[in-house]
């Protein structure tokens, strides 16, 4: 069983109680979400159709309530008292998660139980609570989002592990029940087994990290590792443990070499679930990586050269840096080159979402200041634009089946100009065309990368962006320019209006959020700094000459 000598080392039991209390109050928004999950389960089983239909509303309401609660409970003092590694990380991140979560929930309205509800409505079947899965679906939805939010306030490895698992476990089920097809089941099995492998990998890494630091608490790990680095270099155990953990968590962000599942699973699941998978576990993995790398830090590391002299260098420990570098370069390239070939829009977006993880790793390598800020900003941008793109797929259908192939989108502009425009805007943003939201995300990542000396990676990212333009532009060109094919003529909007609402609001956000880049990045800056004192340093360090 897990142990924490530190809690015990604190003679003052009242102090420990205060820490626990602070941590409990910090997670009040998560408790709201859990309550929402319970409510969703009950509503979903209700005999009344109206109550069953209200399930997603309960989800959205609990997400919005949690979003409003976050700034109330997440005060700097409380975050300080809870002893978090990045005290304010949870504030903007959790608010953004709730907002994107609400958008994702809108996308999935009308997804599950469509046939069975039709059967109930027509009287062909009598209502049977065991035959509806709406309650479970939305409860899992909220549980997974809860896990993601818990990652951002993790302060020890066990919490981090549990939060990551809470994020992932519901998604395995969501894939399986998202649509009645063999492919969904196959995808779920694949996802589950590879997920288990990944979990074992990072758990092993966590164990090694514990062995190296002698503590599970992230802030104390940071201090132990800093002392080790100053006294002659980080122990090999810490480095290997960290790399193992990174490789395991790479699964959550669908980064190479743990990306193998992404294309099949994303394609097998229904579009709304795919949108969910492409954001929630990925964000959890990114935040977890941020915290894990935060324990070793981005400075004070050294290598021993051939003559035996110790040379201090900027940035992450060399071995970790190389591992991340390789992961980033492979992830970007494999994702983009893989996406090139796809004739299925969903599969293309799946591969391309692999590539976006690669871009974000550049920010992780760059570290505090612009690097980490840009990761958070990019996560937000990616969440909005990717969800919007999937929402358009989810908002259209052909003969009751969800559309998948690119050809289905041909000539969309003639019949649904707004949706076509939303698709063009989302795809443009995913490429990084200025002045759309995605451009600012890339800009920050690239500046952060260059300032950290990672010019090679930034150039690889630019080349990859050019490759991505080739396939993303099909999402612009086909709906806007091409004449509709007979196949595309049969594409109609889904009965539920909400996925389209999500798509259009996402497109609006892509257009409008660039006006708020400055406040958003300021929020990210507050979030990633280690302590409020460091916050000021970061601000001064990154501050450009006043305009």
């Amino acid at each position, binding site marked *: 069983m897990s*142990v924490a000598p530190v809690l015990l080392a604190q003679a003052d039991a009242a102090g420990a109680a205060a820490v626990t209390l602070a941590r409990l109050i910090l997670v009040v928004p998560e408790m709201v979400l859990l309550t929402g999950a319970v409510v969703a389960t009950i509503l979903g089983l209700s005999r009344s159709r109206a109550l069953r239909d209200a399930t997603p509303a309960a989800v959205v309401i609990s997400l919005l309530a949690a979003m409003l609660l976050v700034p109330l409970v997440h005060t700097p003092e409380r975050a300080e008292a809870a002893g978090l590694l990045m005290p304010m990380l949870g504030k903007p991140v959790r608010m953004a998660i709730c907002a994107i979560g609400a958008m994702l929930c809108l996308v999935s309205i009308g997804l599950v139980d469509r046939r069975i509800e039709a059967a109930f409505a027509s009287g062909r079947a009598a209502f049977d609570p*065991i035959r509806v899965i709406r309650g479970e679906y939305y409860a899992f939805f909220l549980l997974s989002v809860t896990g993601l939010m818990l990652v951002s306030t993790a302060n020890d490895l066990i919490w981090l592990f549990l939060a990551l698992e809470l994020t992932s476990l519901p998604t395995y089920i969501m894939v399986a029940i998202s649509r009645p097809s063999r492919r969904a089941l196959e995808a779920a099995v694949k996802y589950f087994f590879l997920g288990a492998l990944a979990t074992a990998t990072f758990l092993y890494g966590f164990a090694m990290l514990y062995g190296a630091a002698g503590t599970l608490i992230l802030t104390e790990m940071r201090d132990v590792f800093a002392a080790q680095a100053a006294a002659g270099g980080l122990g*090999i155990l810490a480095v290997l443990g960290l790399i193992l953990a990174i490789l395991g968590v790479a699964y959550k962000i669908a980064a190479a070499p743990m990306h193998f599942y992404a294309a099949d699973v994303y394609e097998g699941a229904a579009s709304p679930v795919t949108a969910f998978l492409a954001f929630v576990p990925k964000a959890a993995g990114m935040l977890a990586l941020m915290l894990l790398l935060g324990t070793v830090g981005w400075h004070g590391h050294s290598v021993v050269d051939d003559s035996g002299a110790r040379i201090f260098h900027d940035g992450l420990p060399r071995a970790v840096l190389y591992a991340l570098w390789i992961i980033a370069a492979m992830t970007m390239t494999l994702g983009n080159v893989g996406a090139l070939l796809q004739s299925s829009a969903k599969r293309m977006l799946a591969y391309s979402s692999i590539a976006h993880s690669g871009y974000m790793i550049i920010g992780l390598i760059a570290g505090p200041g612009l690097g980490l800020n840009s990761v958070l900003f990019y996560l937000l941008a990616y969440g909005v634009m990717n969800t919007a793109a999937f929402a358009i797929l989810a908002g259209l259908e052909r003969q009751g089946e969800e559309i998948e192939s690119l050809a289905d989108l041909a000539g969309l502009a003639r019949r649904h100009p707004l949706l076509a425009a939303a698709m063009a805007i989302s795809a443009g943003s995913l490429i990084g065309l200025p002045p759309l939201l995605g451009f600012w995300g890339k800009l920050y990542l690239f500046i952060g990368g260059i300032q950290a000396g990672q010019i090679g990676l930034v150039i690889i990212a630019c080349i990859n962006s050019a490759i991505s333009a080739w396939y993303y*532009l099909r999402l612009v060109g086909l709906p806007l320019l091409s004449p509709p094919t007979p196949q595309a003529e049969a594409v109609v909007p889904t009965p539920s209006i909400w996925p389209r609402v999500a798509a259009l609001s996402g497109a609006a956000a892509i257009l409008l959020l660039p006006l708020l880049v400055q406040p958003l990045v300021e929020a990210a800056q507050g979030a990633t700094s280690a302590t409020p004192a460091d916050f000021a340093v970061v601000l001064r360090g990154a501050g*450009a000459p006043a305009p």
Partner: protein
Amino acid sequence: MALLALAVLVVLAVAAPFVQRAAPRRAGAILAAPILLLAAGFLAELPAVAGGTFASSSWPWIPDLGIAFALRVDGLALLFAILVCTVGPFSILHAGESLAGHPRLGRFQSTLLCFMAAMLGLVVADDLILLFAFWELTSFTSFLLIGFDRERADARRAALQALLVTGGGGLALLAGLLLLAIAAGTGSGPVFSVQGLLESEALREPAAWPLVGPAIVLVLAGCFAKSAMVPLHFWLPNAMEAPTPVSALLHSSTMVKAGVYLAARLSPALGGIALWDNLLLGFGAVTMLGAAFAASRHSQLKKILAYTTVSSLGLLMLLLGLGAAKAAAAYLLAHALFKGCLFYCAGILTEETHVKYAEKLSGLARLMPMTAVAAILGALSMAGAFPLFGFSGKELALKAELAAGSFGLPLVIATVVTAIFTVLAAVLAGIKPFVGAPPRLDEPSAESHADDRAAGPRDPAWPRLLGPLVLAGAGLVAGLAPGLFAKPMVMSTAASIAGSAVPESPLSALGLLWPPTLATALSIAALVLGIVLFALRGAWRRATDPIAAASAFGPDRRWNAALDGLMATGRLVATLLRGPTLTGAVRGALIAIVAIIGLAAWRAGPRPDLKEAAEGTTLLDGAVVAVLVISAIAAPMVGSRMGTIAVLGGAGAALAAVFLLYGAPDLSMTTIAVETLVVVIASLVAAQLPRIKTISGAAARIRDLGIAASFGLLVGWLALSVAGRSELKPVSDEHVLRSVPEAYGRNVVNVILVDFRALDTLGEIFVLGAAAVGVTAMLGTARRRGATP
């Protein structure tokens, strides 16, 4: 003024579809008039700008990074602004006529106006990020404009190609601009202000070179892609799929010049750095000569003009590389005037006669005299004939090259040869269609429409005629009396390019002709030889067929090859690296983990002391390990599921024994319980599964054995390395010590679970609960499938 102009253009762009619907016949004039007023406004700023006073304004956008919405109108920006605001409205007028009745005309005008706004923004932007945003917007609007005729696959393909080349080049540009901004900042944050960048001394410091070197390559890659330099030139001739107004505006005077603009804009900061100069010179010279050669062999009107445009862009880049600011400025203006004029004339010719090929046209001067005047003036200017402004431009270019010293000679030769080809192209495209035998109107042309043939070709109405006439007239006035507008424009532009005021020298055609110099002689020689070549063009084309076939200047074969290559790589990646099956994916992940961890461990790695680890082991240990190893090896060899499960159960029992031997009886008991449960559950599941039919072949087994063995060895190695590090105090003593006084519990395990780590236990319960609900949902789904097949 710049902001006002941007606002007017955006408002017009929004209003265009409505205007078009409300007043279909007069919409062109209504939309064009305000822009011509803007052009007048910009012209009115000319004296002040020539005097060295620049209007600038700035609003903060992202103060943390120093990114601002900053505008600045200096000589270079003003020249482009005037071009955008004069050629632009002509294009709108032209489109209003030539596309009259087209259902999407309103949207076309709107896109055209958006493009003009983007282009204007690009040249007046005083912030690198703003500049880049406008840069990509010009690419995107031009994509929509080229693909306007979306029913035709060629147009769609050309549009996408142009966007990919120019937009993709844009990404290189972004990386380059970021590098420059950071290099100029020297640690105090990036400098995004263009003025700040130009004034920065840091760029020329040796310390900045690691950033500036790649920056130059990347920035120029972006400029070359946009301005169609070889080998990225191919998109421009293909972009001639676009309607005439687009070609005249985008592909002669504005968008393709954006690359030249940016190179000129950055010249004060980077000019004189050998890499910068040499790249501009090299690519400029090759493009100039190669494209002119290609132009000399074409006979399709718009293609001739497109290739000569590429050639001119090459000359401009070359002049920038030489640092010949004044020559570059003069040629820039001259080219915009005559090429815009010729594009409009070519468009009118094609629209009126439905013939695309210059060789098929002759004697049209009598039928369309006004067009003929404009076209001939434009062609003469392009050929560099006295006294048009094209003559002045070419003369200054030759003079600058002659002054460049020893390496100037090859450049002079290349320029003269280019001039000869250009004369041929100019005569063919601009003069030949109008002179000679009158056309036989009754000759049925394959491309003509029945109803148009009766009317025959004639001069169009003023909206289409205004543009070419004004541009041709401006070329003539500029050559004869440059003081009117050309001289202040050229001088202030040259000052922007050079970074400081340039010395006065004659600019008028007369002033350059007399007293004659070597440049004059070369220019006249080129003119004469060009006319001779025109007369012999049939023989010339036949003679050069082999070269053309061998050269890469043909259709964009390499583009297709490159795309094919990219696709093939994609397929390779997909087949090689994507695990098509679950086992394949597991294999891939395991190999990667072993490789990355193994490499890191090997590089810095722990060297476990086997001797020390072996110390104190007993025979019993050996026996337990033997059971473990044997069951691990036996598991995949048994051949039946039940057998494998049983053997793995044996391995589990051996593991429990290990725990027991090393003093962890509770852990051992837990392990036995879990292992037993797993065996029972797995057997129950296995009983339901079909029998294993196919077992992988020998090669696959050996491969899997290798993967499994390497993974096992890695984990074992790591475990051994960890075992040696016992400097950390075990935490269990502390737990036992505090269990009673702090938690009032005697069972330490319980205390840890519900007290010391209570929050984690709560989390575990949640996770397990979620898993349990999930299993229920899955079972429910399965039952439902059974119920409703």
